[in-house]
């Protein structure tokens, strides 16, 4: 097995898991959701193997570097962090219903990495600025943060689909109740916020060791700060009267749009130090 085989099967398995979750939602079938979960776990194993193998292969090619340094690798890793977090939440809170909103995100990230011709899967050597252990810490924490926000986004969507009161046997019955969504969304935002904070900080420490400046208002930095502000706003709005449920979910959706812009938009639309990743 090599990394490209492992990652193609990951894509396939994540796609299959998504189909299972959709099926379980459409046909109100509990077993399909269980099947989806197992398929997702298998995909996660493959995903882990793929990342590990890519690491090994980079050593075999003589570059020896962590597999987190270009668009392809970051997307693969983004799928991984989302899958890990989702599996953790499903196991801990025993809520399967929202897999239907999260599995498409997990699948899309890795599918986009595989199918967009402009994203190269080649293992290239690192330019000098990227050779730093801070890079690994920076990428890992940022993507854990993004995964938290992605799950919060998936949960927030439910508010706009599921009515507050649902019929006992309706299609929505198996989605978490509004109270649970509220709490889970908050937990995911908080998780994301902590890791985005660490991500921004490790990025700053890295920039300071490479360029002598911990903050230079480069567009990617600035957008990650904007994202951070949005989620800080989310947390403070919760303290105010009238901000819960749908209203707050809207803020979490805006936050995720900011995440996506930080991740993709800045690369394509704005220019700066980060154009490589």
């Amino acid at each position, binding site marked *: 097995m090599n990394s490209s085989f492992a990652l193609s099967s990951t894509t396939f398995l994540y796609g299959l898991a998504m189909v299972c979750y959709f099926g379980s939602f459409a046909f109100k079938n509990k077993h399909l959701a269980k099947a989806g979960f197992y398929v997702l776990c298998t995909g996660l194993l493959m995903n882990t193997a793929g990342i590990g193998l890519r690491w090994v292969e980079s050593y075999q090619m003589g570059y020896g570097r962590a597999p987190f340094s270009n668009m392809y690798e970051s997307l693969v890793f983004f799928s991984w962090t989302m899958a890990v977090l989702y599996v953790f939440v499903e196991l801990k809170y025993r809520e399967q219903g929202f897999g239907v909103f999260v599995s498409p995100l997990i699948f899309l990230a890795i599918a986009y990495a595989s199918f967009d011709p402009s994203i190269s899967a080649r293992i290239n050597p690192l330019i*000098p600025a990227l050779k730093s252990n801070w890079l690994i810490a920076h990428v890992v924490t940022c993507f854990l943060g993004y995964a938290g926000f992605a799950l919060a986004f998936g949960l927030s969507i439910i508010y706009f689909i599921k009515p507050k009161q649902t019929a006992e046997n309706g299609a929505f019955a198996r989605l978490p109740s509004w109270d649970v969504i509220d709490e889970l969304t908050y937990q995911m935002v908080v998780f994301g916020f902590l890791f985005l904070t660490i991500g921004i900080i490790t990025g700053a420490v890295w920039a300071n060791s490479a360029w*002598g400046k911990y903050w230079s208002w480069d567009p990617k930095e600035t957008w990650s700060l904007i994202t951070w502000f949005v989620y800080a706003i989310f947390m*403070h709005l919760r303290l105010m009267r009238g901000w819960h449920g749908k209203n707050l979910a809207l803020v979490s959706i805006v936050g995720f749009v900011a995440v996506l812009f930080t991740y993709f938009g800045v690369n394509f639309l704005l220019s700066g130090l980060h154009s490589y990743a």
Partner: protein
Amino acid sequence: MKNQDTIPRQIWEFFCSVKLTVYTLVLLAVTSIIGTVVLQNGTPQQYINLYGKGLYNLIQVFSIDDMYHAWWFLFLLLLLCINIVVCSVERLSLVWKTIFPKQIRFNPDRFLRSKKICTFFVDQSPDSATAACENWLSKQVGPVHKKKGENFRTVYAEKGRWTRIGVFVVHASVLLLLMGALIGSVFGFKANVRIDEGDQVNTVFAAKTREPVQLDFVIRCNEFEVKFYDTGAPEEFRSNLTIIEDGQETLTTDIRVNHPLRYKGINIFQSSYGTTSAGAAVMAITDNITGQEITRTMQVGETITLPDETGSFQLQGFLPHFDFRGRNLGEAFFGKVTLNDKEGFQIGLPLQFPTFDKMRKGRFSFVVKEFEKKYYTGLQVTKDPGVWYVYAGFVLMILGCWVTFFMSHQSYLIAVEPVSDGKTSIHLAGRTNRSTQNLNLKLAGMATRLENHLKKG
């Protein structure tokens, strides 16, 4: 809250409110976008070309060309700081009293009213069950407090009062960060310098203003080296530097990207490089009449006679950027050809275009086959006495967030209620200042463990 309507009180309340926080953060987030879209720190001409004269005036009025240092942006940050200080002062005394209570009090009714109570029965007398519960709770949670109710006894324990301070640490870390940034921008500098291999400097140039900045020591670049991968991409830039202080060589070391030199509060980073001059060059000289080619190794400045005593050629120097009719042809040598019967003329020998000199169609054409490169190293030299405050802020922010998000003040209550025939019912309930979802999950697990504990012994 007397004097609720006095003006100072109203001002205080204004700066205290979370509403102000939200507005300020929204403004910061929205305005930050501007600087990622509009060019920053450009020249006036660039702005006029991009946006026209009218908009350029607007850009100037609001300092949008350097908006993250504009007065109104700094004002928003200041507002945030005042907001944090006022809000923390207002709340701290209250929270302090909660964290260090004179006496721990608890109200069993509030626990027993909660929806998530775990209840089970044991075949024990209330006395022994209470003792066992006490023992268990003190091990699981902390010091136990007891109360006797009308028809049950309660055992209470709590932990994590101190975690309520976490959110103050987060807010304080924001202040510390901004303070560090301020100290850095007032007392620090960021400058650049280029040093040719073998040269030394003690003056660097501020990045923004280009003003010279005098250092307390001299930096000498002994050697610069660049390595490439097979793909042609750069693998490593390395400068070997010596620090000379009062005429004494105090330190010699290599710096690489990501591995700067920190010396007496000054940081020296590898930031760029280039070719500044050349040592010996191998010249191929072709006689276009006889077709004969000779090669010579020449030093810059050296003069040689051309074949058949027809004249001489002097290798005069090296240019990193050779300008030919307004086009930059890159690195090049230049020299002077003097034929016996004529006045001398200058020729350029761009390295990327070996046939360039042939196109001159003279008697001799010259090509540089090889040469010894001399590099300059581009260093970024910075001083930032605020960075330690910023780093302390980073650490506090992470710790504060961790404590606030993942730890909580939890209290647990076990009610032991006698039922008939030596049976006793046990109720376990809990309260927290944070996630009730997590607490409920925890309670379920604890109840199982408590039940096992009681049944075993």
